[in-house]
Structure formats: C-alpha cells, structure tokens
C-alpha cells in the first residue's frame, strides 16, 4: 500500500526537483538573509516585515524569525518593521550573499510606558494572507477576561468568522465548521482538546505563548489534516540575555514563568507553570460534602533552544496539562494533553531554509470509582507521532517555493474499562486498538507575477491507511435503515499491522492578490482540505470524554472546498486596517448520529453514525486600529451554516448548532496615561437554534416531549449580548528597579444579563404534571475579578 502511495507521490517529487533545478540555475543571484529578533530577550520575531526601499520588494520572517531576499548586487536601504517595535532602517552594500541579523527594540521598553506607534505596517494589504488573524499577546493582557484569566481560545471568538455553541463551551467553530475541524498546533504539535474546566478556559498558558495565528481561509498547502482552520500557537523561546521571571495571581489560577540563557547568546530555556487554586478553599471547608472533593487543572510547559552555529539551531519543547476532579472516594476523573516537539532549523544556503520536526502528542482521559467493591477505571487515549520536513526555497525576487513531506502514526485506544476488585459485578471490556497512518507531501509557490499581481498556488497529496491495531481485529460493514441503528454484517478479521483501507486525496490550493492602490488590494482564494480524524460527539458542547475516531472502511474522509473573495484597505498611514471577506464552503462526509446513539464503549460505534453534507457562507467585516492611545477592533460576521444529513430533519438542510446569523464584537483599549489603561468588549450574536417540542404524552406518569414534525433545530433561542470592562493599573516604577507589576481589575458581563445558553423543556420540580420551558444561563450575573501580574529581570 505504501508503495502505491509512493508511486503516486513520485510525480510530485519529479515536479519538485525540476522546479528547484530550474530556479537554482539562475546566475548572479545574491541574497540578504538572517534572523530578526527582539533586542531585549533575543526572541525570534515571527512575521516581521522586511522591505527594500529602493525597489519595493520585501518579505516577512517565517515562524523562526528567518527571512531571505534575493537582490542584484548594489546598495540598498532595508526597513525592518514589526508592530510595537521601533522601525529600523539599515543601509547595506551587497556584493555577494550577506547575512544580516537584526535586533528590534520594543517601543515601550518599560511596561508602564504608553505604547504609541507612529505608523502601522502595510502587510494587511500586500501579503498573500486572507482569512488570517493574529492575536497580539500584549493587547490580550489588557482586555477584560472571564475571572481575569487571559485566554487565547476565548479571545479568538472575538474575531470574524468564529462562533461557538455558547458560553463556556469547548473549542470554537470556524466558518461553519465543527470544533474538531480546527488543527490546533502548539509548537507544531497537535492538541486534541484545547479546554480546561469543560471549556471555560483553554490549555494555553498565556505567559508562555509568543505568537498566535489563526488561518481560516486560503490555507497554504503546507497545512492539512483538518477542514476548517489552523490555530498556530508558538511558545516563547526563552531569554538568551539574562535570567528573568514573570507570573501572576488571579481569581482562578496562579502562574509562574522563568527563563534564562543556557549559554549566553547561544541558547536559552523557559519553563512555565499554571495551576488553578479554587479547590484549596474547598479543603478548608468544614463541610464534609465539600472538603473531600477536588477540582483543579494545571499546565506545565517548557522549551529549550540551542544555536549550534549560523546554520543550525535546535528547539525542544513540551507541554503537559491535566484537569482533575474527585468526589470523595466515590468518583474520580481526569483528562489532559501531553505534547513534545523536537525541531532542527537548518539553512542549507542563504536561500534554502529547512525545518525538520519530530512530534509526539497524546490526549487521554480516565474516570471511575477509585475504591470499593464496584471500583473501576475507564480510560481512552489517542497518541500520535509525526516526522516531517518543511523547506523554503527563496528562489528569486519573484518566487518563494515551499515544499515538504510528513508522516503521522496514530494509535487510537477508544475505550477500555477495567475493574479493580475481584468481587466486582462488572466485566472488563476493551475496544479494539485502531491504528492510522497519514502521509502528505506538498509543493507551494508564492509568485510575484506583475508588480500588482501575486499568486500562491500549491498542491497537497495526502493518504491515509486504516490499520489493524491487534490480532483478530474485526471489521464489519453495516446494513439497515438510514436513521436507525444498523446491524453489523460481513465480519472480516485482520492481524496486527494489516492495512484495512487506504484513501488518497489531492488538495489543490490557490490564492491571488491584486494591489489596487498603495493602500488597497483584492484577494481571492480557493482551497480543498481533507480530514481523516473525527471527534465523535453528539452533545451540544464537546465534552472531555469525546473520542477521536479514525477514518475507517465505513467512515469516509471528510473533505471541504472553500472559495473566498476579499477587499483589503488600510487608512491613515496603515494605522487602521480594514477588510471585507466573503466565503462559501461546502463540506462532505460530515458525521452525525442516530437518535439515542450510544457513543461510549460501543464496539459497533459505526452502527450509530449518519453521514451527510454541510455548507456555510457569509460575509466578514473587520476594522482594526493597531496604534495610538485608543486601539482595538470591530468584527462583524453575517453567515449561515447548515447541514444535510440523511436520517435527520426529513433529509432536508437544517441550521447547524453553531449557526449564528449575526455576530458582532467590539474591542476597545484606551491607554489613558502611564499608569492607567482601560478596556471594554461588547459582543452580540443571534441565538443558536434548537429543537422545541409541539406535543407531550405520558409514560408511567413521566411527561415526554414530542415533536410531530420530526424537524431539527426548528427554533432559535434569544440573542446573546454582553459587555465586559477592565482597568489596568501600573504602579509607579522605581527608577533602576528590576521589578515591574500591574493590576488588572475586570468585570465580566457588566449588566448582568442572563444570556440563554439553551432553553429546554422539563416537568416542573413541584408538580411533574406541569411542563415548563427552562432557560439555562451559564453566567447568570456579573463576575468581577482582580489579577496581579509581575515580571522581574
């Protein structure tokens, strides 16, 4: 099977070699290349813009801070720019290829200086990016947050095109895609569950994060494996100049981070830890029903890097997080992710940059009764290992070629329950271990066709093998009426390692950009994406117990086609960015569930599944002011997201559970003085749709709701709106002191609106004959919080 995969990718390889040799034959080519770093701590700057004044050509730094520009020999003025940093101009005379490493200085060097940049960066208009949003970690810290916890996933929800099923739900939905259709990468390692505390907070420790980028359209060929988006989170590398610490304490958790050089200027490390501590108060309670319970989460992250020489650098990073819950000795549960990434950056020559990565990632959960005669332990696990190589060839002034390949090996242990006591009433069970192998190779070229027109076009070939994970592995087909539980038929048996089914997919990608004026451009993109993993979940919000399932002989790979068109315009010397994007996305082989589906510990899980299509379309409006005393953004999305599943809603299209017609977010930050900064967030969205009954009957005295139309999501709950405010106080800074701090005071849901999460129907507690509609609000009042942050260097 692998051979056929290789044969098919042969064409790609030939194509690749041809193009590289073609480019390589160019003569008289010289390059300027190097790294752009922060002067204060030596951190690489991702996405800094580098331009040449004389001819207007430019580039931006990659995920490791590397840039490379091809020029003819001569004298040039290079301009290095990054938001929040002082623009640096450098005059160079080039006779042969030159390395130029740059350190940029932060504009507000002291934390309590007001940051006022004079101008923004043109990138919004000139880059190929569309459907891409970056989160500025600096701004996040000033913005009001739920219980004072700065949170990346919650902040993403303020961007255009993003919705959720409701407050405090796990994950996020991008342009009508499911929560499992986002590839969440932490230092290139996939994170299978991004939530702590059932979705209230995310697993990313904000102190340890350097850069956050969300790609929801025009996805370059180097990314694959999920249909809807890429959330690329990069951790800090660590201070290469000196030892420093930072941290904070809020109403929910306490954080601490330490970073230091390993060898000054050559390598550094960073370690960060965060733990929620609300459960400490439980322990102090005299109430026995409380003090024996536990509920907490923690994260540990660490990263080290070492520069061997000009051309070689190593990075090792890891993350480990857990949520723990225990109710006395009666019940215990935990879940968490662990990831590890080893990377080697190698520059073969100034125009050929390579990164080789090895990744390990797992997600597991366990729950059960810890002791007693009916003690049991139920676990579920997904593990993956990936090796990959990604290369960028800065061919010439007009072409940047990216290519690479990767292989991922998955191990799925969907569920096993073991009993601890010999006298137990329950039998041990274990679902079959499944394996998966995902291979991909891609080429992608970013080409300047004319002064105004640029294109980025690429092709990704992906393959997936569904593999038996054990001897006597049984595979069934399923027969029956669509919409009802099907029966397994034609069982076949496989040995460990046998390939049961193989799929191939070609994924073309294309982006075009046409510059209209100095400050405006139009962009268009098309991409096909394929997904071989599926999160099996039929609850409103995803739960930590949901199981990842590979594509099998019965479950087909999901795939999506998306087209998007956008207008980009900057105002006032690039300090204000505006974009308007429209998109249409069609998704195939989407998974849904029969009524009353049994998704846990079910060896015939596939008998419970339904398949169909989804489509989403919308318009996204985004206005962002990056600089000045008052900055922030307005994001408005009009969209529709629908599903058509055979066996649901009489086989007709119906609104998906995260469909919200209108979605508005306004974020404002006002840096009033050196000591005070204020911020506010307002959000409004259409209520999500749900299914309401139109009749009732009784079984044994219990009132049962019934919907005679058999429709799904036939009503909408009332709209959602909320205002949050915060104030940040920077205490007076003693000259020469190495200690800096700030206080963030915030109020979430200022006007204490009881936003409905859902409305459901139940018999009244007092009189079961009376049925009522109940509104569930996750947050029922305003939530004030105080957070103290510090850093010491």
């Amino acid at each position, binding site marked *: 099977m692998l051979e056929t995969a290789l044969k098919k990718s042969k064409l790609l390889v030939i194509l690749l070699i041809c193009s590289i040799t073609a480019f390589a034959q160019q003569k008289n080519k010289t390059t300027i290349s190097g790294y752009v770093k922060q002067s204060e701590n030596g951190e690489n700057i991702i996405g800094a813009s580098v331009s040449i004044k004389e001819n207007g050509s430019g580039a931006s730094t990659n995920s490791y801070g590397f840039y490379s520009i091809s020029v003819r020999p001569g004298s040039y003025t290079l301009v290095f720019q990054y938001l929040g940093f002082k623009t640096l101009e450098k005059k160079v005379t080039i006779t042969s290829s030159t390395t130029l490493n740059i350190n940029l200085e932060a504009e507000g060097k002291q934390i309590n200086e007001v940051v006022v940049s004079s101008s923004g960066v043109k990138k919004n208009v000139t880059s190929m990016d569309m459907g891409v949003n970056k989160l500025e970690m600096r701004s996040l810290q000033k913005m009001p947050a739920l219980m004072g916890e700065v949170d990346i996933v919650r902040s993403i929800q303020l961007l255009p095109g993003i919705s959720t099923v409701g407050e405090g739900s796990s994950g996020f939905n991008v342009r009508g895609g499911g929560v499992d259709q986002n590839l969440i990468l932490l230092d290139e390692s996939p994170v299978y569950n991004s939530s702590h505390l059932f979705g209230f907070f995310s697993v990313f420790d904000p102190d340890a994060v350097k850069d956050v980028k969300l790609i929801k359209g025009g996805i370059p060929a180097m990314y694959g494996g999920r249909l809807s988006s890429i959330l690329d989170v990069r951790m800090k590398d660590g201070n290469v100049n000196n030892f420093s610490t930072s941290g904070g304490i809020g109403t929910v958790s306490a954080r601490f981070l330490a970073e230091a050089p390993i060898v000054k200027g050559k390598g550094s490390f960073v370690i960060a830890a965060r733990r929620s501590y609300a459960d400490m108060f439980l322990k102090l309670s005299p109430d026995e029903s409380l003090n024996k319970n536990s509920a907490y989460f923690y994260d540990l992250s660490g990263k080290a890097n070492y520069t061997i020489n000009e051309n070689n650098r190593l990075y090792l990073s890891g993350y480990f997080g857990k949520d723990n819950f225990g109710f006395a000795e009666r019940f215990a549960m935990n879940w968490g992710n662990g990831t590890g990434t080893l990377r080697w950056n190698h520059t073969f020559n100034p125009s050929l940059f390579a990164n080789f990565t090895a990744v390990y990632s797992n997600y597991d959960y366990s729950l059960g009764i810890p002791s007693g005669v009916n003690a049991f332990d139920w676990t579920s696990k997904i593990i993956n290992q990936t090796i990959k190589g990604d290369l960028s060839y800065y061919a010439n002034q007009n072409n940047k070629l990216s290519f690479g390949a990767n292989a991922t090996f998955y191990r799925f242990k969907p569920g096993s329950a073991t009993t601890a006591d010999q006298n137990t009433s329950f*039998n041990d069970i274990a679902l079959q271990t499944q394996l998966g192998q995902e291979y991909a190779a891609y080429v992608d070229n970013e080409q300047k066709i004319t002064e105004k027109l640029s294109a980025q076009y690429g092709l990704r070939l992906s393959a997936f093998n569904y593999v038996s994970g054990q001897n006597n592995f049984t595979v069934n087909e399923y027969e029956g009426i669509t919409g009802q539980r099907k029966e397994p038929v034609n069982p076949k048996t496989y040995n460990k390692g046998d390939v049961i089914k193989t799929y191939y997919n070609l994924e073309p990608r294309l982006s075009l950009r046409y510059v209209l004026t100095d400050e405006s451009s139009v962009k268009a993109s098309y991409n096909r994406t394929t997904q071989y993993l599926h999160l099996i979940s039929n609850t409103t919000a995803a739960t930590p117990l949901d199981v990842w399932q590979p594509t099998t002989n019965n479950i087909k790979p999901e795939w999506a086609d998306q087209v998007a068109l956008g207008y980009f315009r900057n105002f006032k010397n690039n300090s204000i960015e505006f974009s308007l994007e429209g998109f249409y996305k069609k998704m195939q082989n989407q998974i849904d569930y029969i*009524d009353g589906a049994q998704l846990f510990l079910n060896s015939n899980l596939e008998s419970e599944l339904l398949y169909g299509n989804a489509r989403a379309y919308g318009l996204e409006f985004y206005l962002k002011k990056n600089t000045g005393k008052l900055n922030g953004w307005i994001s408005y999305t009009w969209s529709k997201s629908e599903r058509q599943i055979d066996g649901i809603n009489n086989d007709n299209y119906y609104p998906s559970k995260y469909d919200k017609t209108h979605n508005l977010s306004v974020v404002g930050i006002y840096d009033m003085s050196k000591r005070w900064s204020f911020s506010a967030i307002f959000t409004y969205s259409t209520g999500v749709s749900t299914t309401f*009954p139109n*009749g009732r*009957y*009784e079984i044994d005295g219990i009132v049962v709701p019934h919907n005679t139309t058999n429709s799904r999501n036939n009503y909408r709950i009332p709209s959602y709106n909320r205002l949050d405010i915060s104030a940040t106080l920077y205490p007076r800074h003693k000259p020469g002191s190495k200690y800096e701090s700030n206080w963030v005071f915030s109020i979430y849901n200022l006007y204490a609106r009881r936003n409905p999460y859902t409305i459901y129907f139940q018999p009244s507690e007092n009189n079961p004959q009376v049925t009522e509609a109940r509104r569930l609000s996750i947050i029922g009042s305003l939530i004030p919080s105080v957070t103290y942050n510090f850093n010491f260097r």
Partner: protein
Amino acid sequence: MNTRYILFILCCMTVLVSSCEDVVDVNLDSGPPLLAVDGWLTDRDIPDTIKVTQTSPYFSNTAPLSVVGAKVTLTTSSGESEQLTELSSGKFIVQNIRSIEGVSYTLKIEHDGEVYEAKTTATRQSFLLDSLTFEFREKSIGQKEDGYIVQYYGKELEGKGDACRLKIKKNGVYLNSKEDLNYMNDDFVDSASFKKVRMFTEKPFQLNDEVIVETWSITMDAYHFYDELRAQVNNGGIFANPPANVRTNVKNINSSSSKKAVGYFGASLVSSVSAKVTDADK
C-alpha cells in the same frame, strides 16, 4: 453501567458550572394529536392495564386526553386472542392473557378509521436479584438529603442480549419520577454476580421504609426506549443531547398515513425482592 455513569458525570459537570436556570415563556406551535400508548403485559397476579390516550400541546398541563371509542385487541403467538375491556375511558384491562417467556404479543388498536399495531415478546428473566442492602450517605452533590441508598446483590444469566427494568416501591407506592428510572442491559455484566450495585432514586430512603424492587424483563428495544426517554426528560445543561423523539413500537399499519402513534407496549416477567431500612444499616 456506561449510561448510568455518563449521566452521573454530566450531572456533576452541570453542578460544577455555576450556572443559573429560570422558567421562561416560550410560544410553541401545537402539533396534531397523536395516539399514545402506555402499557405492559406481565405475569403478575393483578390484571394489567393498557392506557390509550392522545398527545396534547406541550404546555397543556392537564392529564392526557383519553381516546374515546377505541377497539383494543391482544393476540399471542400461541394463538390466544382477547378484546380488552375498557374500564374507564382510555384504560383497558387485560383479563386472561398473561406474559409467558418466549411468547410474542400483538396489540391492535382500531381508532378513528386507523389501525395501529404494537408487537413485542416476553423475554427471559435474566437479572436475578436475591437481596437488598442500604447504605447511609450524607447529603452531597447528586443527593438532595441525608438518607439511605439502596443496593442489590444477585446474578445475571449467561448469554448476551438481556435487559431489565427495575421498578422500586417505597411503602407500597411505585416511585415514578424521572430520577427513579432504573434499567440496564447485560453488555458489560453478562453472567456477572452483582454485589452492592447502586440503584438511583430521586430521594434517599429513611429509617423503617419498606422497599420492594421489582425486576421486569424487557427486550433490547424496550431498553433503548427507556434510554432515549431518560435522555429526553433529563436533557439540560451544556452537554445536552439534541432533542429528539423517543422511539415507539406502535405503528400505523398504513405506513403512508399521516396519523402516527407514540408510546410503548411491552411484555415482562416480573419478580421482586424486598427489605426494610433498619438501624443496622447505618
């Protein structure tokens, strides 16, 4: 075991999340009235009752409207047949036919020009409970007040595909709130012996309560019926399942007719164990 614990976990999750709930006004459409059946044939000494009613608008908040003038007939695979007597409107009594292991039953309801049929089979009594114990627990998450929870001992017969419903009587009265629903299948307990397996009740028991637990053998289809029913009547919180109609085994024999039916007709073998909560249990 699985659904029970998942329910328990989801309850705990909902409690952890400091959410708030209140009653709101919602305008709902009223669907057309459908025939609703609720009845079980057993091998108990008392005659069994089959209730035939019709669905009412969701917020009607009255006892279900009875069906007037229905003709209800029960036939067995062993060739017996009986037209049921309408005791009061919509309440039909089975006089002669009893539930016998392995026998299939068809309930036929003729009403308003339509004919509905429900088919079921009496399955073996596979969950054999031999005794009950009580354990005192203080009020906690998931338990409304101090009191005794009930647990059982027993065994399950070899061979997969068995299911049962456990009905609890406290001081002679059936507990019938949605929290008192107990049912299981033998997926994870085939030929197991049960030791101190907990049953769920809305409220714990108190000293001197007389508790009778009846085991009703049910088909797998009936098991799924109760499982879907429980999911729908407890469907709240952030991890709610999509609202969906609970299955029924009552079908209009004219499948193209717009008049459908809801509810369930089943046949069970019933056995029981009893115990009294005493000081010794504390």
